[in-house]
């Protein structure tokens, strides 16, 4: 095929991303090629809405959190006006990072190199010894000469997203149906908002970021990759009383037969987003009853029931945000290179929920997503092997055929014929191709 040949043989100069994605196959170069990665940073991470952080990370004026939007280091700040700003973490003078720490409190921000200072909205506050700029094109008294604000920032119910592009679809258009998973997480808080628990975990996977995202809608892998851990959890539960709900009891559920995952609803949305329903049962007991009562008091009985019925195990807002609502966890991807992906992993508490819900979420985070977790420890092995396999040059295509003839349209979304369908991976790569070929 000419398409395959051109993709394989193309030098960087005539690289054609459109040729890397077919209806049911993806070329290996989409995953492993460093030139493709650079294009992704420009065309996807430079244009899309990227998750930055949650407002509960920076409750007080002067609080800040630093991270990356694509290749751009940024500072998320709370200014004295109470508003949240996302600023380039780069001194306008010589380019130094103004905030070297991951999080903290600073009023004003002062660059360590020559003492330039900035307000929480980025405005240039002062340049020490202003003399010497007379007659130049730089005005040290102009507040606009400070830390640049990112062109677009959106606070959706406490979740801060930003875009490096001044133009493009607005947040709601970009999110579309993909927003229902995020909204469901917030709706599950009896006080109407969520809050981060402590600091995020940061783990690095030695694989392309899309190998990880593929896995997020891959129900089928659980029966194989997590089988031993699930059996170990089941064996332990049979031998001893489990004292911390949300850990071993959840891990024990990962060893179902592939048919178990087939029963899960899997829906792909425009823009590459998707959601997969939860398979872990909701908490039970007196605290769960109290939680349900407070949900009904806040939302009304009918609405509360609808919210609790709509429960997700895995949600992707392409390209950066992966949520596990039923575990109150969120993983944010920050790609470093074609073969390295940083994850920021947050655990949330539902404000107004019983204390035991916090403990349950903390236990789930420890067991499932910490730097010592027993779930991704096995996933990392498959990510490594997939990436290493895709580095091999002789065979080009990754196969995403499963379920392609069983797709069920749902408005503008597509429901997989069953929970083992590869519909969400196909959908993600079709969105990827749209980003990569947009003018």
């Amino acid at each position: 095929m000419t398409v395959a040949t051109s993709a394989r043989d193309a030098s960087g100069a005539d690289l054609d991303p459109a040729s890397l994605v077919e209806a049911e196959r993806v070329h290996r170069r989409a995953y492993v090629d460093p030139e493709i990665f650079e294009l992704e940073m420009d065309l996807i991470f430079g244009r899309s809405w990227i998750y930055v952080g949650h407002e509960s990370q920076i409750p007080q004026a002067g609080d800040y959190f630093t991270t990356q939007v694509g290749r751009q280091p940024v500072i998320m700040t709370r200014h004295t006006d109470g508003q949240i700003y996302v600023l380039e973490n780069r001194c306008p003078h010589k380019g130094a990072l103004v905030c070297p720490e991951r999080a903290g409190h600073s009023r004003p921000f002062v660059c360590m190199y020559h003492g330039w200072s900035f307000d929480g909205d980025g405005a240039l506050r002062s340049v020490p010894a202003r003399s010497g700029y007379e007659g130049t094109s730089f005005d040290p008294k102009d507040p606009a000469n400070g830390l640049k604000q990112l062109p677009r920032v959106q606070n959706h119910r406490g979740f801060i997203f930003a875009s490096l592009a001044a133009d493009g679809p607005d947040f709601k258009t970009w999110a579309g149906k993909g927003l229902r998973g995020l909204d469901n997480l917030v709706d599950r808080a009896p006080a109407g908002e969520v809050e981060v628990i402590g600091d995020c975990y940061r783990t690095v996977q030695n694989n392309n970021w899309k190998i990880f995202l593929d896995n997020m809608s891959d129900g089928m892998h659980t029966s194989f990759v997590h089988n031993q851990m699930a059996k170990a959890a089941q064996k332990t539960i049979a031998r001893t009383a489990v004292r911390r709900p949300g850990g071993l009891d959840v891990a024990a559920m990962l060893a179902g037969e592939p048919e178990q995952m087939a029963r899960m609803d899997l829906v792909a949305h425009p823009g590459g987003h998707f959601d997969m329903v939860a398979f872990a049962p909701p908490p039970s007991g007196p605290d769960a009853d109290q939680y349900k009562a407070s949900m009904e008091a806040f939302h009304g009985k009918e609405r509360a029931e609808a919210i609790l019925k709509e429960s997700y195990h895995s949600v992707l807002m392409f390209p950066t945000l992966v949520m596990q609502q039923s575990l109150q966890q969120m993983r944010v991807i920050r790609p470093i290179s074609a073969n390295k992906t940083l994850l920021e992993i947050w655990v949330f508490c539902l404000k107004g929920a019983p204390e035991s819900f916090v403990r349950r979420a903390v236990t789930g985070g420890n067991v499932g997503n910490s730097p010592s977790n027993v779930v991704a420890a096995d996933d990392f092995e498959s990510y490594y092997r997939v990436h290493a396999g895709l580095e091999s040059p002789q065979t080009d295509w990754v196969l995403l055929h499963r379920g392609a003839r069983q797709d069920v349209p749902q408005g503008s979304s597509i429901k997989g014929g069953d929970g083992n369908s590869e519909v969400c991976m196909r959908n993600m790569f079709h969105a990827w191709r749209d980003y990569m070929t947009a003018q």
Partner: protein
Amino acid sequence: MSTIEQTLKLTRSEAEDLLFRQAEYLDSRDFNAWLDLFTDDGSYWIPHRPTDTDPETQMSFMFDDVPMMMARCERLLDPRTMGQLPPTRSSHVVSNVQVLGTNGDGELIVRSRFHVTQFRRDTLKFYAGAYTHHLVGSPDAVRIQRQRVDLIDCDGIHDTILQVYL
């Protein structure tokens, strides 16, 4: 007072014997013997941040009670566990051992430093930090009530998931 008479006392050398034995169990992958060193309600905690105080409500790098330790050891010993193909090898050096005394709960507190090297699939990885052991029992049957492991890079970026205890 009788409670003081029942309190565990160890010389530094006796404390070292326990720490060295515990390290050797891990390095020889004798995870069941390692597990038997803990009391039934024992715990093993690697804080996520140096200042953390409460693993029940704060995120941890690792926080295992005995059921979780049992499951983790079970996973490590299953020859088909994906993340242990190939298995992790480790080598401990434990040093700077200090017997600090007894706390209000009658636990003997022993502080030490460690350097652990782990090897898996062509990659060496280093872990360094401090152990704080809370010990109970009698000198010939010492058990670990709590072990705190403070990694110097607990809040850093980690490109390997820690699978074998430190």
